């Protein structure tokens, strides 16, 4: 066992055909143990059929300060959205 436990992010697929969804995080000594703890901590009530664990340090995340350059330029490009199309009759959502 190493001195320091590592942080892992847990993703669970609730049923076949759906995507894995982030459900939380936990501490473990290695990925193998993280998977077992994920089972004990997050799937006690039949929540899932598949678990992924990923070391949190392996995730590259965008920062708050990136928001301006990442997302703001999209505001004036409405043609990128499908909002202009009229829905055919009988279809409520697309």
């Amino acid at each position, binding site marked *: *066992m190493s001195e320091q*436990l590592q942080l892992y992010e847990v993703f669970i697929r609730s049923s076949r055909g759906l995507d894995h969804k982030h459900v939380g995080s*936990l*501490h*473990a*000594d290695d990925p*193998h*143990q993280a998977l*077992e*703890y994920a*089972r*004990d*901590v997050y799937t*006690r009530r039949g929540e899932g059929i598949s678990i992924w664990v990923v070391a949190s340090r392996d995730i590259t995340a965008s920062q708050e300060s990136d928001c301006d350059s990442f997302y703001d330029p999209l505001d004036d490009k409405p043609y990128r959205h499908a909002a202009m199309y009229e829905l055919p009759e009988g279809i409520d959502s697309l």
Partner: protein
Amino acid sequence: MKLHDPLTRYVVRLGDDALIMGHRLSEWMSRAPFLEEDIALSNVALDFVGRARLFYQYAADLMGGEVTENTFAYQRDVRDFTNLLLCELPRGDFAFTLCRQFLYDAYSLPFTQALCKSADSQLAAIAAKAEKESRYHLRRSRDWMLRLGDGTAESHERCQDALDQLWIYTDEMFECDALLDGLIAAGIAVNTEGLRSEWLDTVTETLHAATLVIPKAQGNVTGGREGIHTDDLGFLLAEMQFMQRAYPGLQW
């Protein structure tokens, strides 16, 4: 409380193993080394208490009358309990608890697998549920053996100490007595003697991988099946049974 029917005695015996093991594990709740392990250990404790309930409910059905699952858990004295001594030993440090768990899980998995084939359909059904749990328990406790045994110098030493202390209590798991002989012949009980070599294989392989050594035999301690227990079980029952002893029939 005297039990006479062999099947009932056998079912209660299995219930006692599960309840006492579950209670010892539950003592770690809020005291485990870190949060995730606390939850995992409590889950295992709950599996054992749940298993005890299934056995006791079945025993209560067999006896009929006023007897319920709670009668077995809360209204029997220490001499009426027939669990393995291994299950009742105080929890000790974390290494001791996990070593006990590993030695028991390595027995419990082949035991529940064999019980699935019992001629008694109710026992077979309980075993089918327990077997899946035991498979996970063994995976977990084996994992801890590797982590602690092949970990730091201190974890290795604590682990080896625990094994040395526990070893004399392991033989009792495979003991056969007159009660078992009759039920084995009827195809109801598991012939525990037959599980010994599989258990030893699992234990040998794991201890080797964990850089631990098999303790040298120094005799065996036994008697749990006849109700001859260590002092420690009395203290466990005093705590577990307190509410029902102080307020008989109390309900939540």
